């Protein structure tokens, strides 16, 4: 085995201090010498690192980062360097399975597909096209999402199509649309190399996007380090590097951001010319932020006045600024309203469309961007507006169907509503592709009941027998990344081509092949009587997608597999105007808000109420960005004497989602084998809990039991990672989502994973636990937090300069 660095022991690797251009360093890990290298991309987070896969005798034997790739400059993180090994896991699904009573028994593809087709046709005939739903993933390839969108919307004619991206990225997409008119990340990762300030709002970049964090660390180690402001109730590895670390009480992002904006406006740190020329509704923001004085912000968020002012000084006066939002915003209360305030900060300072100036509404999952673009997630295809008849007609033209057959008479159904329809019997067949709702959705007891309903026919396409697949009626074995060819798009609009490096095991097939087979068997036709789906492979799907995206912001029409293979990576739009692709959007201050071009007519970001087309037209943004202010509203549940703590959930460095892949890689699993609950030293003392003690956590919905980790989290707040279902240990009772609420943001419909009221109780001390595993690794390596010093009331990292 040869590796250029031990990415488990040293997550972010050795420093290459830089100012401006980020140095190149190719990270590599090889188990054997390869016969060949195959071009690919990592799909274990939304950074999308360019990588090549080493192949020997038809097996993957290693990976290396591609040095010339603008995204990662050759670097790879621990998941990238190790995750590929999950493909070879012995418990891969290799045949279709069909339920007979309590058992799932092997079946042929013909049998399985025959059954699915029969049930589809039956459901459609008896209950209508709206009785079929599709719940897909954030990890598929562009070609698969696109084919799914065509099959579901034009073939079946259902609007019940959404992805698990609802849980991670929906707010990112909606926030961009509300402010800028359409989805589309305005900036490029190169902006991190040249900016004077970085503002990370609810984004533990160190744990969740390790290579991008390496990039930031290298700037921090260089001669011109940017100043760093971090918003997070936990003292994470990210927060430890902050100049100012704000730790708001969970659920109070909006008051905090309103307070920051109020200071920026009051001190005149705004670009009035930009505001006048390129935005509308600034006055509304002045009104909504006015009540949020620093004192009021402190009372509600517990962020001290001095910290708020220090943060405002940085984000308000820095000559350039890069901000990001991620789950700390998106999975908390008033997610869309809060995310939009970060957009507002950049709009009122004119910090957009130029080097070092941008906001990233970060994507959670690796290919979440693609599902948003292809319309497999509840947005309409290619950032079109389902409510705009011209846009619908345009799509119908590309797909060669009658416009009226596209299910655009209602907004697309969001994931939680899809499950609600399953609960009421309105949906009779649910096809789940590449995701594990039995662990990743909120309020799991309710979800398990739904999946187990007799009147719901559940099809699961996956590579392993997950907790969800175990409850299915038909399971289809899926090929993974590396075993199929396709393209992916990351969080700075960079498109990569991932070539097939090896055959999938047994009879596993790519989701693309499965969907093409389904389309053929269902005999979906276009309006001329020919087949609806005219492509037979990934490249064919990509070519159709190019035509579909032409003229829309996510324009791929200038790309091709050949070009992607040659150049390695291209940022959209790539067309006649931008044949090399385009690094930044909105360089001229022209946004996509024209009424006939925008993706939606917008919403009231507090209530979710939708604007009518005439209301949007009356507003007449005409290419100017829309500033939307927001007031705070009461939370869906509050802590009380019975449930005095606030629970937040999230990720650790070494795992992805429900550990379907990462849990099967020895090195990654060993680094973080068990769940835990993080609590503050003062809370631990009050509860009589010591490190490693087994703790029972109870919400108004359920209980779980996990060992305690005493750490630098805010008092009154506890953190549990959400990865740990029971597929690998049926005795484990630690799925964080048992505790979470069936509630979500009114605009983005993204669930409140980071806000629930709980109580804690010690169950067993660490020494009495017979499941006590190896000694805990340092909390930092979990992507967790270190203990705060217990002396000194004012010892907050950052304010005191602890680095």
């Amino acid at each position, binding site marked *: 085995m040869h590796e250029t660095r031990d990415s488990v022991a040293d997550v972010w690797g050795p420093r290459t201090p830089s100012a401006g251009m980020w140095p190149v360093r190719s990270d590599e890990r090889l188990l054997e010498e390869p016969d060949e290298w195959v071009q690919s991309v990592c799909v274990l987070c939304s950074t999308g690192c360019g990588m090549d896969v080493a192949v020997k005798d038809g097996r993957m034997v290693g990976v290396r980062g591609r040095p010339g790739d603008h995204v990662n400059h050759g670097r790879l993180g621990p998941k990238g360097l190790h995750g590929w090994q999950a493909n070879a896991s012995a418990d891969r699904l290799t045949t279709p399975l069909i339920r007979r009573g309590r058992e799932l028994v092997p079946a042929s593809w013909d049998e399985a597909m025959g059954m699915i087709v029969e049930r589809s046709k039956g459901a459609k005939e008896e209950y209508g096209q709206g009785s079929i739903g599709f719940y897909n993933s954030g990890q598929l390839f562009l070609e698969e999402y696109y084919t799914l969108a065509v099959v579901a919307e034009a073939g079946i004619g259902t609007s019940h199509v959404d992805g698990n991206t609802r849980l991670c990225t929906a707010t990112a997409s909606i926030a961009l649309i509300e402010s800028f008119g359409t989805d589309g990340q305005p900036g490029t990762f190169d902006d991190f190399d040249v900016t004077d300030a970085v503002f990370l709002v609810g984004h533990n970049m160190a744990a969740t996007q390790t290579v991008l964090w390496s990039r930031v660390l290298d700037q921090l180690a260089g001669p011109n380090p940017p100043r760093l402001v971090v918003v997070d109730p936990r003292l994470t590895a990210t927060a430890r590097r902050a100049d100012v670390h704000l730790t708001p009480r969970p659920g109070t992002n909006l008051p905090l951001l309103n307070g920051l904006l109020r200071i920026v406006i009051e001190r005149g740190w705004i670009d009035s010319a930009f505001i006048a020329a390129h935005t509308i509704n600034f006055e509304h923001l002045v009104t909504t932020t006015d009540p949020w004085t620093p004192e009021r912000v402190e009372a509600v968020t517990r962020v001290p006045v001095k910290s708020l002012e220090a943060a405002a000084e940085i984000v308000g006066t820095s000559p350039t600024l890069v901000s990001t939002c991620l789950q700390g915003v998106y999975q908390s209360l008033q997610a869309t309203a809060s995310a939009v305030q970060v957009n507002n900060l950049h709009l009122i300072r004119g910090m957009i469309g130029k080097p070092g100036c941008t906001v990233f509404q970060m994507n959670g999952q690796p290919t979440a961007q693609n599902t948003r673009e292809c319309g497999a997630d509840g947005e309409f295809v290619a950032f079109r507006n389902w409510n705009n008849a011209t846009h619908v007609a345009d799509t119908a033209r590309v797909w060669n169907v009658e416009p009226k057959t596209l299910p655009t008479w209602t907004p697309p159904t969001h994931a939680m509503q899809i499950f609600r329809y399953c609960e009421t019997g309105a949906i009779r067949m649910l096809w789940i592709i590449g995701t594990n709702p039995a662990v990743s959705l909120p309020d799991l007891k309710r979800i398990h009941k739904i999946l187990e309903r007799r009147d719901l026919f559940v099809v699961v396409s996956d590579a392993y027998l997950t907790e969800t697949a175990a409850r299915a009626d038909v399971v289809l074995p899926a090929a993974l990344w590396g075993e199929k060819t396709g393209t992916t798009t990351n969080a700075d609009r960079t498109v990569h081509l991932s070539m097939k490096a090896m055959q999938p095991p047994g009879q596993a097939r790519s989701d693309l092949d499965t969907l093409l087979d389904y389309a053929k068997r269902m005999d979906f036709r276009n309006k001329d009587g020919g087949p609806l789906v005219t492509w037979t492979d990934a490249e064919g799907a990509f070519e159709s997608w190019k035509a579909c995206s032409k003229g829309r912001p996510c324009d791929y029409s200038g790309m091709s597999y050949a070009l992607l293979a040659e150049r390695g990576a291209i940022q959209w739009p790539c067309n006649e105007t931008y044949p090399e692709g385009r690094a930044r959007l909105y360089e001229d201050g022209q946004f996509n808000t024209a009424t006939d071009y925008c993706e939606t007519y917008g919403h*009231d970001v507090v*209530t979710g*109420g939708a604007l009518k087309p005439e209301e949007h037209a009356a507003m007449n943004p005409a290419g100017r960005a829309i500033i939307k202010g927001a007031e705070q*509203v*009461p939370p869906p549940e509050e802590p009380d004497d019975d449930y005095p703590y606030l629970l937040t959930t999230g990720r650790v460095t070494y795992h992805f989602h429900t550990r379907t892949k990462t849990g099967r890689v020895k090195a990654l699993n060993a680094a973080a084998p068990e769940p835990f609950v993080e609590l503050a030293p003062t809370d631990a003392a009050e509860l009589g809990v010591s490190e490693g003690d087994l703790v029972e956590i109870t919400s108004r919905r359920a209980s779980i039991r996990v060992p305690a980790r005493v750490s630098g989290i805010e008092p009154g707040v506890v953190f549990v990672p959400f990865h740990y279902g029971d597929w690998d240990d049926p005795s484990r009772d630690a799925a964080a989502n048992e505790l979470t609420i*069936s*509630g*979500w943001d*009114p605009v983005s419909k993204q669930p409140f994973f980071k806000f629930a009221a709980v109580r804690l109780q010690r169950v067993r001390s660490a020494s009495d636990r017979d499941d006590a595993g190896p000694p805990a690794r340092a909390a930092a390596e979990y992507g967790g937090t270190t203990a705060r010093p217990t002396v000194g009331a004012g010892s907050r990292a950052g304010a005191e300069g602890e680095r």
Partner: protein
Amino acid sequence: MTALPSPRPRVKAQVAHFLGLARSSEEQLLDALVLFAERHSRDFDLSGGATIVASWPRDHIERLKLLVERYGAVPSDQPERLRAALLSGTRMGAAGSLHDLQDLSLLAEQVSMAWTILFQGGKELHDDDLLALSADAREHTRRTLQWLR
């Protein structure tokens, strides 16, 4: 020549009347929203939204106290009669929730009408408190109606 009587007492009496109507309408809307949220607790799109917009009637009722002290308020049972007619019985399923939303819209329209008249009154009487509350309340009610649609 007799001077024309000051419009103020007449306008003040109208304000008292419509303050009473506003208060009763807001109370009925609030009750209806709370009932609606409970009835549709399995549908967070409905119950969560109702809980959000219910914070506004609560706010208005609180802020009304000052103005009621100033002008008095003539109690009105009109909202109660309207509310009793609406939201009655058990309404099941999607059709039921549509019906409920329509009923809520009617109640919200009633609130809106009262505040529109009070806004006029505020202008005539140069009462900044009345103007501010009416303006806020009209905007909140507009947003509530937008959500209900």
